[in-house]
Structures are given as structure tokens and as C-alpha cells.
């Protein structure tokens, strides 16, 4: 969020909404209406005085109405833009021309009631709709006693209760009497899979977030008792099942398969009644009931659709197709996140990068035409090489620091420290005018090291580094001292101790500043070509998308034809012909001038780093060297071949894909087939493979409906553990039930058995409702076998990237960087990342193409300056650093027959593990050298150290 706030090429328009959108793709005009904030962002320093003085309390919407705040407020401390705003609805000054207290008390004079609403007209090339989702409306919640009983809360309210900066500071208490909680119940599918409120779909995320909220609650209070009421446990994301099972076992969460119809209150506690599978009826009392509310279409969906000229689906979400999941119905308008359909954060982030790629495709020829890149004056090497001339600036931050710390005393004390030639206090060092003042003082006194004693470097260091760069001083020659967030704010009752601490911290910073060295921000040239490994649906989509963005792409496919698993698919989930999608992709790939396809080719070795990879690809026995800047892994996955269930030993036992292929050959195949038994999770979730493959339930239902379409009176049984038809595929599940498909649930410890007797096969399964074993005679048994990882070991070793325990590639961060690998410049999409349906693979391929195009678009990769540097003479080539580095950013090279370590600056993240483990202390970290830290330790002791 912070980066979005700072980039010169991003303009955040808050309290604004879209009024109209005209024009055609590449040439739109959008008119936007913006309400005033009544506080000037640049001036406001978020000190909070206005909130203290405002007499008008209002309900805090950010905290789900659980506490009160004042008219001038900020949603939460780390909000971006980091400035307060006035809520006009309740403001006395705006509505009744009285009060004006906040404007008087604001020391930064940032409050301005003369601000008016603005109408903006923006010339844009593409529109991306990401308005998120709407909340479940009260009528649905009221069915469960929400609004009548205080202790019935929604999951969002529960989030605020567990949040450390929330209304109860993380203490879990009953809202009715603030007593600590003992027993909590989570009700699933509130406002989802519920015909009565029109939301027949499944919201895909509630099962997983309920488990998370339960675990967080147990962390707060281990002896809490928690029960969760599920219909199907739908935790089908990557690593989700594993996380859920760990949580259930570690926290003793009780999972009950029942849907609670209503909630009653019995002497202050909440009563739930339900019947279990075996007919027993139970009822229990709970302190709190959390309603896992689903994700609705945004409230203003119709308005957005009408203005943007796009179509919605029958649930009010944006309508998209399986083979182009990110494009809304109007060309040039794209959709990402929950507005396209209920989804979790990892998928929203993936789709967000995906639509960035589509916009970048549409506007590739006008790239960099409207962005501004800052230019800096030449660095003044002379000053930097002189002896240390340190300037110390001690900030008042209005009263935030000066109210507790004696700033003058600290300023004078700093003046006495060796090498400090200038010391001054400032009222607000982060305000525009103070920064200019600091710049002139630095030039005026020929300072070459700067110490800023103010707030946290985490938030403000870049701001001061920019100031240094703007006057020709290297950005590394600054050290910040946190005397606000970690001193005055937290020791407000002990002013002398706080002042003493501030002096010590300044002394330590000056000691470090004395040893600061200018650090080069090295940039690395990027060769503008991408290498895509794997020619399946994901690989082709990624290659096409990179080429459309204007960059050359080499597509390597092991087999002799493109298509991968897409070749075996017959129908997509929304009924399109899969072969049409396949042919279209292949035609566009073969026809694209920027894509070079290499069939029957395999990547044997890859060397280099982001921007400068060189791969040797073996094609027809001959190694071919290819230079490229980035790599996209799209090696796909493989249909699992189960060993059990008589598969391979009886020709009437097929997999879902095989069924689809034979159905496509013609109806004759079904001539004397009357009974079909489908078995879900074959080989998955605990058998050959531990993971759930996410798409087999939907695929089974699709095939069942195809069968019923061809031969309506055919009998189909589906034996399942959890029907995981998440999102809109829930409709298909309902339709299958309507068409008479019989669903029988089995427990993992009593899996169905395929029995062969004199040529006929039957399936024995324990039916929980009848509490007895039943045998179903089957003319055909169809197994949903799930997706196993391709043989990724060879490629993983070549690229030195880790694999997950299940054998898929491990992404850098499951939520924030889902399509990137830890090592820079390598991206990932499709089944190689994990099992997923076609539309998610395509969206992920676009996302990978977007991320891969960034270094290509920039032409240069800028490298952080706090990287490691190896002193070759001291290095004895022991290799400890190479083995410990999490980013393969330090490698051993042969330097005239001796082994020496060397940093790969582009990949180094500056964590410093190598430096702290080097036996000969040969590695120094930019900005955090051993000497600097030792100097700080000695300064910490002050006089005490000998």
C-alpha cells in the first residue's frame, strides 16, 4: 500500500466514483466525481490532535461499528494516504456552520473547509474494474438472530475483535457483558449456497477463513472451545487442506457436518440445535456465534455495469468466459478480484497481475509515454570523500516528540558529539518546507553524513533519501533515529528517561553515521527476451501475452506438439469446445512473429541471473544457447494413475478424462450402459497424494450432466468426501442433483471398494444414512483421479528452486507474490504451480506474463544497495555462505584455481545471513557493516565500555 502512495506515476483519488465512460479501447474518457476530504493531504502529519478535540462522536465503520471515533479521523494508523479526513455527514461545522474546533487546534494548519467536490475528466487507454465484493444484507443475518442477540456476530466483526489494533485490542469478550469467551460456534454458508436469498453460489473462502479465525482465537486463549458447522469442507487452495488439518489437530477444533437453521437465546447464552448423519439430534449452548458471511456482488454493481457498459451474470457479478476470465464483455474493460466472482486473496492478486498484462497488451505501443521518471543531479564525490562532517536534525514532530523529549537538550547534546559539525531542531522535518530547509543546510555546511532524529525509518527513510539524492548526496549517507514511535510515544510518563534514551540513540546513530559509506545503486541491463518452458494452455497463454506486450519470447515444449493437457479436454466448464480453444491458441502462437517455438526441446542448463540468463536447450540432440532476461515455468502437471480401484485391470474402470474422450467419439459408447458409479478423491487427500486437486468435483459434475444430456434415464452415483464445487460451479452441482444424480458421502477411513466377480463389477460403500454397507452394480466406474506434479525435479535442480512437499514449484509468497519464485526473474503459472481449473490457469499465465514483462519493460533492473560484498583476499572458499543463502545470491567461482565467493547483486536481498556466518569475516553488508554495528554497541555503552 505504501508503495502505491509514493509512486509518481500513481494518482490516488479517494472518496471518488466513476460517473461516465465513453470512447473505445485505447481511447476512453472517464468522468469521475470526487468528494472533498476537508484536510490537505500534503500538510496533514497524522498527529491526531483534531480527533482529540472534536466534540462530535460517530460510529467507527472501519471497526464494523464496534466502537466510536470522531468526525475528523483516520481509518487506521497505517492507512494510505496517511492523512486524516472529515466525515461530512456528522460535522457540526459543515452542517450547522458552528464549532471549527479542529481547524483551530491543528498545528499544521491542514484543515480547510473551503474544499469543494471536483469533477475530473480522465483520458485513459483501458479500464480495470476491481470494486471488490458486497456484504451479506441484514435480512439474511437476521435469520440467525443477528441484531437480536448481541453475541451473534459476523466474521468481519470477529476479525476486528481478534485484531490487536481493534476495538477490544485483541481481547475476546462477549459483546453483551464484556465477559471473556469460553465457547464459540462458527456457522458456515451464511448468505451462500442459499436459494432463499438468491445466492445459490458458494463464496469459496468462508471455510478457510473460519478455520483461520478459529486458530487465531485459540492462539489468543488456548482453553477456548470451538465448534465449526460445515456442509462441505471446501478448503481447496494450495496448501489449505494441510493448514486446516494442522489447525484442527493442534487446536482441537470440532468439525460438525450440519447446517444450523436458527439460533435461540437461553439465559444469556446461544442455543444451537442440529441432527447428525446418523439421525441423532443434538443441542448445545455457546457464548458466541460467528456467522461466516459469504461474498456478495458489490452493492453498486448495476450502476458500475451500466456506466462501464458491461454485462453481469445472474448473480450480479461481472460475466466472463472460461478461456478469457479477465475480460469483461466490453473490449478494453477488464475485471479482477471478487467482482469477477467470490475468491480468496491469492487468486485476487493473481487476477490483478493478469489484468495488468491485458491492459499492457492493449497499450503496448504507448508504454512509458505518460510516466515520469525522476532524474537526479550528479553525485558530489568530493564531499563524500572528505572526513565525516555529520549534521544532526532533531524533530519536534509538533508535540509528538517535543511534548515528552527535551528536544533542545538532545540537539545541544548532539552538537557535542565528535564529528558533528551542525545540529538543529525542526518542527516537522517530514513536511515539504522542512525538507527544503534541510537540503539547504546540508549544502550550506558541506555536510556529508546526516542523522535525522524523528520517526521510524520504515516509513520515512525513503523520503529523506530522496532529499539527499535531489542535492547530489548518496542516499546511503543517512541514519534515522526513532525517537517518536519507539521513544516519546511509548515513554510519555517518563520524560527524563525518554530524553536520556533519545540522547543515547542519537549517540549510537552518530557512531554508525561516521562509518557510513556511499553505496552504488547498481542497475543491471535486461536482455528483452523471455523463455517460457512448457507449451500447454498456460505456457501458450503466457508466451502470447508477453509477445503481445512487445517482447520476444522463446517457447520450449518437450513433446512434438503444443497443447499439453488441453489436448485431452473435450468441453470447458461453460460448455465451449475445448478443441476450439486449443486450435485458436496454437494458431495464434504459430502465427505470432515475436514467438519462436522449439518443439521436442528440453532445458538442460540455465546460468546467470535476472536480466541475463543464458540457457542451453537441447533440440534434436543439439544444445542451442539462448540468451534471455526472464523465465516462465509452465511445465504443467500429469493426470494421476491410481494403483487401486482395479484401474488398468478392468477396461470398464476409466478416469474422468478417459470418459470425456470416449463420450466425444460418439453416443454408441453408451449403448448398453445403465449404471455409472463415479468415485471422487481417488488417490488424493491422503492416498497416493496428500493434496486436493481442486477441479475434479466440477469435472465429474460436468461429465455427469453431459451423460444425462445424452441419455436422461441413465443412473449415476457419485461417491464423494467433500463436494468442492466452489464458486459458480455450485449451480452445476444443484442441476446434477435435480437431474437425479445420487450423491453418497464416504468417510476417509471407509473408502469405497471396487469388486470384480465373474466379469461384472460392483462398488461397495458404507452409506452413513443407512448405517450399512451397500453394493452398487456398475456398468462403468469413473474415477476422479486428481493431478500429480510433472517430473519437476530435473528443472528444479537446474533452476535451483525449491519444490513443495507435494512436488509442485514453491512460489515466493502464497498471497503477495503467487506467480513469482523466490529467486529474482523466474515466474510460475499453470499446473506446475498446483492443480487448478483451466480459467485459473489462464488467469495465472497472464499474471506471470505481466510480472515477467516488468524487467523487460524497464530494460534495467535496479538493485538494492544494502547487498553483500565479498573481500576476495579474506575469503577461503568454504561455501558456508552459498549453502545458507535463501536466495542463491552468493556463489563460489573458480578464480585462478582457488574457490572464491562472489555476490550476485541482482538477487541479493541484504538479509546478512552470509555475513554473520562467514568464518573469516570476509563479507560486509551495505549499510549494516560489522564495524558500524560494533560502533553502535560501543556507543550504546557510552563511557562504560573500556
Amino acid at each position, binding site marked *: 500500500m505504501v508503495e502505491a502512495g509514493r509512486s509518481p506515476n500513481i494518482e490516488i483519488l479517494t472518496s471518488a466514483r466513476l460517473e461516465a465512460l465513453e470512447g473505445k479501447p485505447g481511447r476512453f474518457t472517464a468522468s469521475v466525481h470526487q468528494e472533498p476530504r476537508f484536510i490537505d493531504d500534503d500538510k496533514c502529519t497524522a498527529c491526531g490532535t483534531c480527533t482529540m478535540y472534536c466534540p462530535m462522536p460517530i460510529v467507527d465503520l472501519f471497526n464494523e461499528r464496534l466502537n466510536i471515533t470522531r468526525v475528523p479521523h483516520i481509518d487506521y494508523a497505517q492507512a494510505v494516504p496517511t492523512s486524516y479526513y472529515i466525515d461530512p455527514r456528522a460535522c457540526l461545522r459543515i452542517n450547522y456552520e458552528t464549532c471549527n474546533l479542529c481547524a483551530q487546534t491543528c498545528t499544521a494548519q491542514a484543515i480547510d473547509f473551503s474544499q469543494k467536490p471536483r469533477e475530473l475528466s480522465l483520458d485513459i487507454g483501458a479500464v480495470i474494474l476491481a470494486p471488490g465484493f458486497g456484504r451479506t444484507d441484514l435480512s439474511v443475518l437476521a435469520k440467525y438472530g443477528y441484531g437480536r442477540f448481541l453475541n451473534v456476530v459476523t466474521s468481519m466483526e470477529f476479525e476486528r475483535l481478534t485484531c490487536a489494533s481493534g476495538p477490544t485490542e485483541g481481547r475476546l469478550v462477549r459483546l453483551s457483558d464484556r465477559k471473556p469467551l469460553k465457547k464459540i460456534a462458527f456457522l458456515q454458508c451464511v448468505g451462500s449456497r442459499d436459494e432463499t436469498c438468491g445466492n445459490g453460489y458458494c463464496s469459496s473462502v468462508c471455510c478457510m477463513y473460519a478455520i483461520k479465525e478459529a486458530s487465531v482465537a485459540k492462539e489468543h486463549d488456548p482453553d477456548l472451545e470451538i465448534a465449526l458447522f460445515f456442509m462441505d469442507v471446501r478448503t481447496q487452495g494450495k496448501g489449505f487442506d494441510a493448514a486446516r488439518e494442522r489447525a484442527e489437530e493442534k487446536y482441537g477444533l470440532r468439525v460438525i457436518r450440519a447446517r444450523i437453521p436458527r439460533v435461540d437465546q437461553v439465559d444469556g447464552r446461544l442455543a444451537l440445535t442440529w441432527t447428525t448423519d446418523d439421525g441423532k439430534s443434538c443441542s448445545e449452548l455457546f457464548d458466541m456465534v460467528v456467522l461466516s458471511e459469504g461474498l456478495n456482488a458489490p452493492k453498486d454493481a448495476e450502476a458500475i455495469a451500466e456506466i462501464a457498459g458491461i454485462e453481469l451474470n445472474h448473480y450480479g457479478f461481472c460475466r466472463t468466459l472460461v478461456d478469457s476470465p479477465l475480460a469483461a464483455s466490453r473490449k478494453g474493460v477488464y475485471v479482477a478480484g471478487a467482482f469477477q466472482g467470490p475468491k480468496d486473496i491469492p487468486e485476487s492478486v493473481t487476477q490483478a497481475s493478469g489484468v495488468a498484462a491485458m491492459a499492457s497488451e492493449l497499450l503496448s505501443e504507448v508504454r512509458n509515454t505518460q510516466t515520469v521518471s525522476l532524474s537526479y543531479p550528479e553525485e558530489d564525490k568530493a564531499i563524500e570523500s572528505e572526513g565525516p562532517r555529520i549534521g544532526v536534525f532533531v524533530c519536534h514532530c509538533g508535540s509528538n516528540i517535543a511534548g515528552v523529549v527535551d528536544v533542545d537538550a538532545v540537539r545541544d547534546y548532539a552538537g557535542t558529539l565528535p564529528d558533528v559539525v551542525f545540529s538543529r531542531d525542526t518542527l516537522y522535518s517530514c513536511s515539504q518546507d522542512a525538507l527544503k530547509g534541510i537540503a539547504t543546510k546540508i549544502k550550506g555546511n558541506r555536510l556529508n553524513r546526516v542523522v535525522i532524529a524523528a520517526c521510524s525509518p520504515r516509513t520515512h527513510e525513503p523520503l529523506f533519501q530522496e532529499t539527499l539524492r535531489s542535492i547530489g548526496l548518496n542516499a546511503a549517507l543517512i541514519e534515522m533515529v526513532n525517537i517518536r514511535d519507539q521513544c516519546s510515544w511509548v515513554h510519555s510518563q517518563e520524560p527524563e528517561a525518554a530524553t536520556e534514551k533519545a540522547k543515547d540513540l542519537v549517540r549510537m546513530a552518530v557512531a554508525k553515521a561516521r562509518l557510513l559509506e556511499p553505496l552504488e545503486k547498481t542497475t543491471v541491463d535486461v536482455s528483452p527476451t523471455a523463455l517460457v518452458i512448457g507449451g500447454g494452455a498456460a505456457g501458450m497463454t503466457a508466451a502470447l501475452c508477453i509477445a503481445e506486450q512487445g517482447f520476444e519470447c522463446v517457447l520450449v515444449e518437450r513433446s512434438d506438439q503444443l497443447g499439453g493437457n488441453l489436448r485431452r479436454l473435450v468441453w470447458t466448464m461453460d460448455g465451449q469446445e475445448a478443441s476450439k480453444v486449443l486450435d485458436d491458441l496454437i494458431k495464434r502462437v504459430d502465427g505470432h512473429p515475436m514467438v519462436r517455438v522449439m518443439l521436442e526441446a528440453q532445458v538442460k542448463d540455465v546460468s546467470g541471473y535476472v536480466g541475463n540468463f543464458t540457457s542451453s536447450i537441447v533440440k534434436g540432440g543439439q544444445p542451442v544457447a539462448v540468451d534471455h532476461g526472464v523465465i516462465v515455468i509452465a511445465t504443467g502437471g500429469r493426470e494421476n494413475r491410481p494403483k487401486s480401484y482395479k484401474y488398468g485391470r478392468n477396461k470398464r474402470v476409466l478416469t474422468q478424462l478417459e470418459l470425456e474422450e470416449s463420450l466425444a467419439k460418439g453416443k454408441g459408447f453408451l449403448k448398453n450402459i445403465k449404471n455409472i458409479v463415479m468415485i471422487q478423491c481417488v488417490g488424493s487427500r491422503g492416498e497416493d497424494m496428500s493434496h486436493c486437486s481442486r477441479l475434479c468435483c466440477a469435472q465429474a459434475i460436468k461429465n455427469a450432466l453431459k451423460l444425462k444430456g445424452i441419455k436422461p434415464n441413465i443412473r449415476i452415483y457419485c461417491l464423494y468426501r467433500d463436494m468442492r464445487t466452489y464458486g459458480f460451479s455450485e449451480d452445476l452441482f444443484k442441476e446434477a442433483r435435480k437431474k437425479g444424480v445420487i450423491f453418497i458421502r464416504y468417510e476417509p477411513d471407509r473408502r469405497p471398494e471396487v469388486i470384480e466377480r465373474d466379469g461384472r463389477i460392483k462398488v461397495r460403500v458404507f452409506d452413513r444414512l443407512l448405517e450399512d454397507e451397500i453394493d452398487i452394480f456398475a456398468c462403468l466406474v469413473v474415477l476422479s483421479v486428481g493431478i500429480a506434479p510433472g517430473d519437476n525435479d530435473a528443472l528444479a535442480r537446474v533452476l535451483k528452486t525449491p519444490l513443495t512437499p507435494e512436488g509442485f514449484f514453491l512460489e515466493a509468497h502464497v498471497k503477495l507474490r503467487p506467480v513469482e519464485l523466490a529467486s529474482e526473474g523466474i515466474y510460475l503459472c499453470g499446473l506446475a504451480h498446483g492443480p487448478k481449473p483451466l480459467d485459473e490457469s489462464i488467469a495465472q499465465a497472464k499474471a506471470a506474463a505481466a510480472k515477467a514483462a516488468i524487467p523487460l519493460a524497464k530494460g534495467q533492473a535496479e538493485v538494492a544497495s544494502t547487498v553483500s560484498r565479498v573481500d576476495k583476499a579474506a575469503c577461503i572458499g568454504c561455501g*558456508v555462505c552459498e549453502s545458507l543463502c535463501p536466495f542463491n545470491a552468493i556463489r563460489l567461482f573458480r578464480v585462478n584455481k582457488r574457490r572464491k565467493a562472489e555476490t550476485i547483486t541482482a538477487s541479493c536481498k541484504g538479509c546478512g545471513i552470509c555475513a*554473520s556466518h562467514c*568464518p573469516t569475516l570476509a563479507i560486509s553488508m551495505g549499510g549494516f557493516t560489522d564495524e558500524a554495528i560494533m560502533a553502535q554497541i560501543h556507543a550504546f555503552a557510552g563511557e562504560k565500555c573500556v
Partner: protein
Amino acid sequence: MGECHYQSGNYEAMIIAEICRQVLKDVGVNPERMVLEWASAAEAPRFVELITRYVSAVKAIGPLGSAEGEDKEAIIRMHLKAGVKAASARKVRTALGKLAKDIKKSGDYNPQIISDGVTKKVFPAFREERLAQEIQICLAETGPCKSADISEKTGGDIKEIGKILETLSRKELVKKQGSNWYGIGN
């Protein structure tokens, strides 16, 4: 155990914390003076509780040195000075590096494995190097003395000190004359 921004940084810190605890015990400093805690960016209340609890714990232990024993302050300071030298010695750091490498390869960072690894592979090397450093400091400061006085001053038992004196004399850092040992200015 919040997730470390650099993925494995916090695991390596656990190994260093373990060696530090064993070293502090060895030089007579109360190991509870050094703690390694985890608090993610959103766990401010947990952080405050950790700091408050830790400060009162240190208050209970008392000032460094005098809390460990009335006359011990000077000796502990010498142990620590030698300890820093030992922690910079290549032999010790290689042992630590190798242990970190093996544990990372095994991927099993549970505390028992770490503490066994440190006890067996790293701490002995550290203790030997510390004693060696102390002998040289001690001889340089107080002049020649018998191995018995050395072991009493450094806290190492006679056999241990004997062995180290052997290695030091082989490196010509010390010389034996009669029953006294002399430091050679290196």
C-alpha cells in the same frame, strides 16, 4: 513463529541464540540475560508484553557481574573479552557455519536437534578457543604463572588447560620454564 521476510533468517538466529546461551553459561553470565523473541508487525501488544516482562526479569537478575557474584565482575569481563575473540576465530566460526549448513540441509530446526548440534560440534571449539585466548591475556597481564593459577583464573580444569598450553606452545605463543609459563608477545 511468524514467517520471516527472508524465509529462513529466523531459523539461523535460533542456532546463534543457542550457542550464545551455552557460551554465557560457560563464562558465568546468567543465560536468561539474552533472549530471542518473535513478534510480527501486527502483534504490538505481544511485543509490549515481551519487553515489559524481559525488563523486569533483568531487573530481578540484577546488574551484570555483581549479580553473578560479588567479586566476579572483573573475571567475567575478561571471560567476555576472550569470548569475543573466540567468536571471531576461524575455527569456531567454521564449526558454527558447518552446523548451520547441515541443519539447513536436513531441514529440521527443532530445538533439540539444534542444542545437541551446538553442544557436540560448536561449543567445545568455542570453549577451547576462549581458554586459549584467556591464557594469553592472563600471561600478558599478570606475567608468568603456574598452570594451576591459570586454571583457577580461567575456570578451565587442569587437564583442559594442560592440553591447550601444549597447543599454544607448539604455535610458539607460550613457553614453559620450570613450572612457569611465559607468554610470547605475538
